[in-house]
């Protein structure tokens, strides 16, 4: 992680991501916030790429930027009479305090802890050529039970979403 390309990429992407998150917080319009959220997701995918996590990066784009953002768009559009001003509630100050506290605490811990991390050449050598097959092996090998549970969870989420939003067409439709 010492080549200039990675360093520049890290700082730029980190700035984009954190900036996007901040804009989600301060944007005055919910749809603007959504656009910045997508920007943050894309920056995050870039950060994943700098960490050699190609599959996760692409999955991040596909699921977050491509699907969840669109879901949110639909949720916003299906609630036309609700406020779209991205307003803050009364808990802004406590929330700020909590957020700053968590961020500060974790940052301090992250900086002062002597992580047994790889550096230099060892880091370069541990760079996997491809993560896809390894992830696949793990998913269907060691983690096969969580994998199945996750698929069942997805299935029930699908069912649940359909059941919740389904419009019941009955005799009372006209009333």
């Amino acid at each position, binding site marked *: 992680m010492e080549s200039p390309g990675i360093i520049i990429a890290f700082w730029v992407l980190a700035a984009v991501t954190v900036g996007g998150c901040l804009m989600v917080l301060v944007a005055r319009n919910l749809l603007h916030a959504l*656009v910045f959220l997508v920007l943050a997701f894309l920056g995050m995918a870039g950060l994943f790429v700098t960490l050699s996590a190609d599959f996760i990066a692409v*999955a991040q*784009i596909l699921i977050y930027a*491509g699907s969840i*953002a*669109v879901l949110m*768009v*639909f949720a916003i559009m299906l609630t036309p009479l609700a406020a779209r001003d991205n307003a803050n509630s009364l808990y802004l100050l406590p929330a700020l305090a909590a957020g700053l506290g968590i961020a500060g605490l974790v940052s301090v811990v992250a900086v002062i802890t002597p992580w047994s991390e790889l550096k230099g050449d060892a880091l370069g050598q541990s760079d996997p*050529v491809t993560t896809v097959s390894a992830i696949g092996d793990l998913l269907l090998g060691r983690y096969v039970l969580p994998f199945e549970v996750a698929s069942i969870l997805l299935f029930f989420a699908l069912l649940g979403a359909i059941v919740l939003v389904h419009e019941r067409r009955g005799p009372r439709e006209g009333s």
Partner: protein
Amino acid sequence: MSTAPRPATPMARQILEHRSLLQRAYALPGEVFFPLLFVLLGGLAATVGIGFLVVAGYLDGRWYDIRDLGNGTSHFRYWAQQQGLPPSVAYLTTALLGGIGILSLVGGWLVIGSWVERRLIAKFQIRQGPNRNGLFGLLQPIADALKLIQKEVLIPVGADRLLFFLPPILIFLPAMLGWAPIPWAAKMSYVDMNVGVVYAIAISSLGVLAVFLAGWSSNNHYALLGAMRTVAMMVSYEIPISLSLLGVVLFTGSLQLSQIVVWQQTYHIWMVILLPFAAFAFLFASTAEINRTPNDIGEAESEIVAGFHTEYSGMKAGLFLAVELGNAILVGAMMSTVFFGGYSFFGLETWIPGYLILATKIGAVYFVFVWLRGTLPRFRLDQLMSFAWKFLIPLSIIQLLVVSVESLVIAQSDLPGLATVGGSVVVNLVLTYFGVRAWANAIGYAPNEMASPPIMTNGVGGLRAAEQIRAGR
């Protein structure tokens, strides 16, 4: 008495006087014809010479081997390393050159594509197409672009200015980024990433948001309707695209696009023969994704004017139109890479540069798109939705099950590839034919009963006559 009707209009006269290209060639004067013939023969001789070089293997892997520009790149990197330059310089240079290459290809297509499409459509519609500006009307796109550029860019009252400004730019990103993993020859892809297929799907899903924002921010009902239609359709048709690509991936065992091409080269078969239904699903769903006939309901002109870009004027509208063209060839590239053998053509790629073969295939797929546009009416939104959810997705899932068994057999068995892959071809063809028919019957689709000619009658009357005619049949 003159027999032939005189051509009534200047246009009709022109059509009558029009000479074909061959007639014009015969009519050439000798001092033009023979030099031309000489040049042609010389080109033929040069081709034979190059052919000898290729067969003798003098070219393989040299930097001047233009059959695969990747050779030049790797030689350049090696040379830069010899010179003691830092690797980043060599990588940056080659990356820049490759980027410029792809951008100029797509940019050149955006310039010429509208002319190609209009000329082709004109041929389908028995008319001439643009033929006034320049040779064969080739300058027409430039005239169009100039017109668009000098038009006023209007921002509608009540539009969200930021979100109105962004989409024409945002929608360009997937159209450009999608080119990265396409292999143009064995060593010649911009980023030969391991997750190429997933990357292509992910990138194409980014366009949804731009379309939605364009429609929403315009503050126009037509635009919003178009955007909602397009978004609903893109979300629905991403699933058949993913499922059909997944079938291909199961066979090839790699998400890398270049590996998919290599697999097809190894087995001397195109995926379209192995997975006909997946190829159809991909083509159909792609037309829905990129808003082309018969699925162009997002910008259905007769219903919602121009869909999500109704309110855009000037070059912003031009950008949307250009992206439509760019997406068409991007889908063509994906389609030919995944289903039509990519840069390979059963050994022809040792003679002809692979990128030319791929470009030809892209052109062929694009021609199919234009053909569809010149031929078919448009579906309705609910029909398209039910086609995706009731037809394409269930059948794709069934196909995936079949394919997973077949791919296991191909991977595990010791039988020769001809037996396993050939068997899979036969099984898939048969299953596709009967599966599609059975499924269509199961969901109650019977088009033949629908087309019925009117009843011819000699009678005249009112309601009673109408009832008699109906009862008489």
